[in-house]
């Protein structure tokens, strides 16, 4: 019983218009480029995307070419100073896509909470800033905290280094980032990997994402990444 799909297009065959999709990765590290390219080909509209970053050179910015996003939840979107404008930035300024900016640690924790069945949590991050505006706060241990709620999605597109046929995943370098969290927080988790090995080939001590979290596997295409 393998979870392997023959192509990224087949692996995302049931992504529907308006779907809420999490995309792993931190800048280029662990970004599911192959799955994003398939989503661009598929042309699905009205996507609510959850990802750390969307900017110049990011794979996700490709979803702006045909205006596939209706809403973006991210920590990095518009650089405070930047010579060039991303496609996302242009759409955002034109009012064609919504943006919910979330502090990165809060974003990570909200996704973890979504995967862990935590109904909400108090964080000191964002107090006194727009990130806490309109939100419930509480004084805990002498310190103001803001109540944040979990994030979940219909799909998670993630990227790991190696999988076994059961979906156990290991990552490489700084590519765990949001991938390992998003693997727990979506109804359908699709992982692209460099290599799929037989069940049992990964040392049980080294598995980072247990296979029960992963629904589908597909091989990554060649990576074209530029250092920017």
């Amino acid at each position, binding site marked *: 019983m393998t979870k392997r799909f023959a192509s990224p297009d087949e692996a995302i065959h049931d992504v529907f218009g308006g779907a809420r999709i999490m995309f792993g990765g931190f*800048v280029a590290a662990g970004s599911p480029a192959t799955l994003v390219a398939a989503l661009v080909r598929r042309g699905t509209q009205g996507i609510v995307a959850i990802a750390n970053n969307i900017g110049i050179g990011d794979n996700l910015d490709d979803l702006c070419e045909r205006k596939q996003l209706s809403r973006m939840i991210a920590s990095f979107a518009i650089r405070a100073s930047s010579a060039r404008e991303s496609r996302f930035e242009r759409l955002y300024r034109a009012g064609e896509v919504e943006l919910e900016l979330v*502090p*990165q640690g809060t974003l990570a924790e909200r996704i973890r909470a979504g995967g862990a069945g935590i109904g909400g949590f108090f964080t000191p991050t964002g107090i006194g800033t727009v990130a806490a505006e309109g939100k419930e706060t509480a004084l805990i241990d002498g310190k103001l905290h803001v109540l944040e709620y979990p994030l979940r999605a219909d799909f998670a597109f993630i990227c790991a*280094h190696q999988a076994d046929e059961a979906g156990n995943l290991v990552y490489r370098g*700084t590519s*765990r980032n949001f991938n390992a969290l998003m693997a727990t927080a979506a109804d359908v988790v699709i992982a692209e990997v460099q290599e799929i090995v037989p069940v049992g080939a990964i040392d049980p001590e080294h598995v980072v994402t247990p296979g029960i979290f992963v629904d589908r596997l597909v091989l990554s295409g060649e990576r074209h990444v530029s*250092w920017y």
Partner: protein
Amino acid sequence: MSAGISRELIALRVARELRPGQTVNLGIGLPTLVAQFVEVGSGIVLHGENGLLGYRPAPGSAEDFDPDFINAGGEPIALVPGSCFFDSALSFAIVRGGHLDVAVLGGLQVSERGDLANWCVPERGGGSIGGAMDIATGARRLIVAMEHQTRDGQPRIVRECDYPLTASSCVDLIVTDLAVIEVTGRGLLLTEVAPGVTVSEVIQATGAPLAVSRQVKGMDL
């Protein structure tokens, strides 16, 4: 007005604040330059909020760039003995949980109470919070490294930030091209001036009341 020190020298001055055994996060931009002055074997552990502890800047080039080994700014890094990797939840557990001894962030504005604004230029809109709010809130000691004034000559150190805040009352030390300023319970205290810069020039370039330390001296470079 005398020219201040270079960005590299600001970074060097910041690096002098770091001690063996400390875990240190460096923000994107100017603060990243501090890594160049942290020697491997110094006992200072650099934290990348993208999920690593223990790294050094890698020379890197477009040809051999490996996107799986980067800092939070997307630049190439190399490992040091004792490096390790983890996910973003553990990375911000480190930040939020008080395990970060020092953070160095860039700044757009710092207020006299140590409020920091560094993620959004209102004229541009949108913005990028990244890890800045968590880091400014969670780090035990926060150093802001920035130019003393904007390109238009407006002060970045102000009574009250008019840019959107990153966190309030979070900054402990400000290191600029002109000066080193401590944020104390009684306001800002000028402790060092850059080579060739006078105390009155610093006061002139600062948009908030500035007490001058009795021990004010030349920058420790």
